[in-house]
């Protein structure tokens, strides 16, 4: 029922990301900020700590040593298995996003080092159809987990998604099982998997890999849940308590190991890998 956050799918990924230009407005404190102030601070508002949404490329650059990585599985591209048409054919939608964002789909995978430990990072691209998970996200993430198993190197995922991709129907749903199966095998081998959950992480992404980390890390204030807030409000017919489904709430309820500001994220992951990974 609730593999999607309907509110998320409407934002088209624009809301929190940092537009190019000299000035940006913070969604947290409404201050007008100098762009460089924000980009130089890991895209976190220096006034209020609001975390701007960032692209998958920025994420990989930020997490790997010296911002250097080799992209993996870059050739995997989406098709239209259901010949899905709503107000617009899925094929056209895909083309428009690909053209605008210069990526094939909603996941980028890179290999590099984090604190000198070789690792693979898979980061979701929210701007691409709300980071929705279809066959391409499933295939790349599964391949990433398999590669980590072969090479005995840790896996880090960065979730940012409204959930499964409706336009690929039940095949999207099956990606949850496919990825989780690959993670089960990685786990058997004693190879660490760190899951980072960012704003928003809901639906089928939360209910599969994002919750399966040996270590689950949330970014401050991120919306994280199975059902989206709107779906819950419609079901129970009451408004939700303040802070419900935010990172801090999940920490309190035992679903996250820690909430870490983005400026400290890389060092925290590196420390976890040093403590867990038998190189």
């Amino acid at each position: 029922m609730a593999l999607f956050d309907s509110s998320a799918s409407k934002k088209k990924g624009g809301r929190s990301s940092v537009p190019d230009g000299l000035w940006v407005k913070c969604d947290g404190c409404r201050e007008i900020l100098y762009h460089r102030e924000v980009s130089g601070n890991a895209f976190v508002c220096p006034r209020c700590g609001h975390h701007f949404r960032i692209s998958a490329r920025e994420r990989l650059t930020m997490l790997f040593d010296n911002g250097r990585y080799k992209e993996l599985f870059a050739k995997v591209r989406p098709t239209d298995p259901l010949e899905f048409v709503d107000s617009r054919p899925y094929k056209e939608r895909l083309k428009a996003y690909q053209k605008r964002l210069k990526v094939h789909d909603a996941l980028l995978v890179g290999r590099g080092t984090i604190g000198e430990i070789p690792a693979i990072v898979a980061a979701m691209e929210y701007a691409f159809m709300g980071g929705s998970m279809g066959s391409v996200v499933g295939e790349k993430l599964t391949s990433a987990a398999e590669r980590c198993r072969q090479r005995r190197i840790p896996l880090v995922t960065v979730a940012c998604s409204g959930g499964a991709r409706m336009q690929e129907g039940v095949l999207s749903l099956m990606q949850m099982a496919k990825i989780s199966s690959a993670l089960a095998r990685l786990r058997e081998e004693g190879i660490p998997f760190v899951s980072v959950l960012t704003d928003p992480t809901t639906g089928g992404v939360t209910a599969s890999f994002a919750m399966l980390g040996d270590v689950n890390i949330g970014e401050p204030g991120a919306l994280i849940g199975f059902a989206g807030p709107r779906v819950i409000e419609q079901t129970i017919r009451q408004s939700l308590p303040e802070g419900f489904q935010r990172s801090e709430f999940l920490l309190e309820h035992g679903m996250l190991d820690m909430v870490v500001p983005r400026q400290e994220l890389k060092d925290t992951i590196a420390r976890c890998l040093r403590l867990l990974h038998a190189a």
Partner: protein
Amino acid sequence: MATPTAPFLEPIERLAESLKEARRHGESEEAARLAARFEQAVKETFRSLTPWQQCQIARHPERPYTLDFIHGMMTEFVELHGDRTFADDPAIVAGFALFDGQPVAVIGHQKGRDTTEKVRRNFGMPRPEGYRKALRVMQMAERFGRPVITLIDTPGAYPGIDAEERGQAEAIARNLREMALLKVPIIAVVTGEGGSGGALALSVADRILMLEHAVYSVISPEGCAAILWKDQSRAEDAAQALRLTAADLKRLGVIDEIVPEPPGGAQLDPSRAAELLSSSLRRHLKELRRVKKPNLLLARRYRKFRTMGEFVQ
């Protein structure tokens, strides 16, 4: 009939009712005439069901539910309760029973028949406790070397405050991961509504079967219509676009077999529906029991899901 039903099925249901009544007095000319009319009506209506009509049959209030199938197919059922952590979730039933004289674990979503029971069963929408109970019973099955049969019939996992607080997403995710490595055969059967993650959490299996009029989808047609068409009343279009019928899923390579239902749908003859499912389960169980090495079973299960999805590279 006390409960609302799919309007397009009403003529068939009235005929089935009359036929049953006529047969109560033994076979007669009248019964034979009604039987012929019933057969003809079924043929006409079922020749080209729309996906939306399939959804209506899958959600039919008189469709057999998990406990009906268990009692129709198995004996000596012992139901187990609780996740040993927080509570028992009546939206999922789980336990052990004899199928063909052999012990199996059986787990399924459970909907209620009357209002009180519907509420108690939360309309077949599990909370995390339900998934955790299911996993507990599956792990018992593994320890005791019993195959697992799951019966899927849910609108979805419950979207509520308490469910979120107790980790609905984590409970589902954990089941997916643990089922991938469970060292006994698993057969999942979508008997009614296969509602997204809430259905998948019991469906990582060696065989996935689907009743002829069941549906299995990443989102309900209503939910999909609300998001993509911005209009819930476009559910019929969404049902079409989502490819959620048994035939669609077979074509997409997600399910292994379509289990036939009695003429007019399982709700018209639940015991016959149970017989038909039994014969299919029997065959698949026999095949799976022949796989003696657990690693081979798991390798095949992995490959099954590994190859799902369509992309180019």
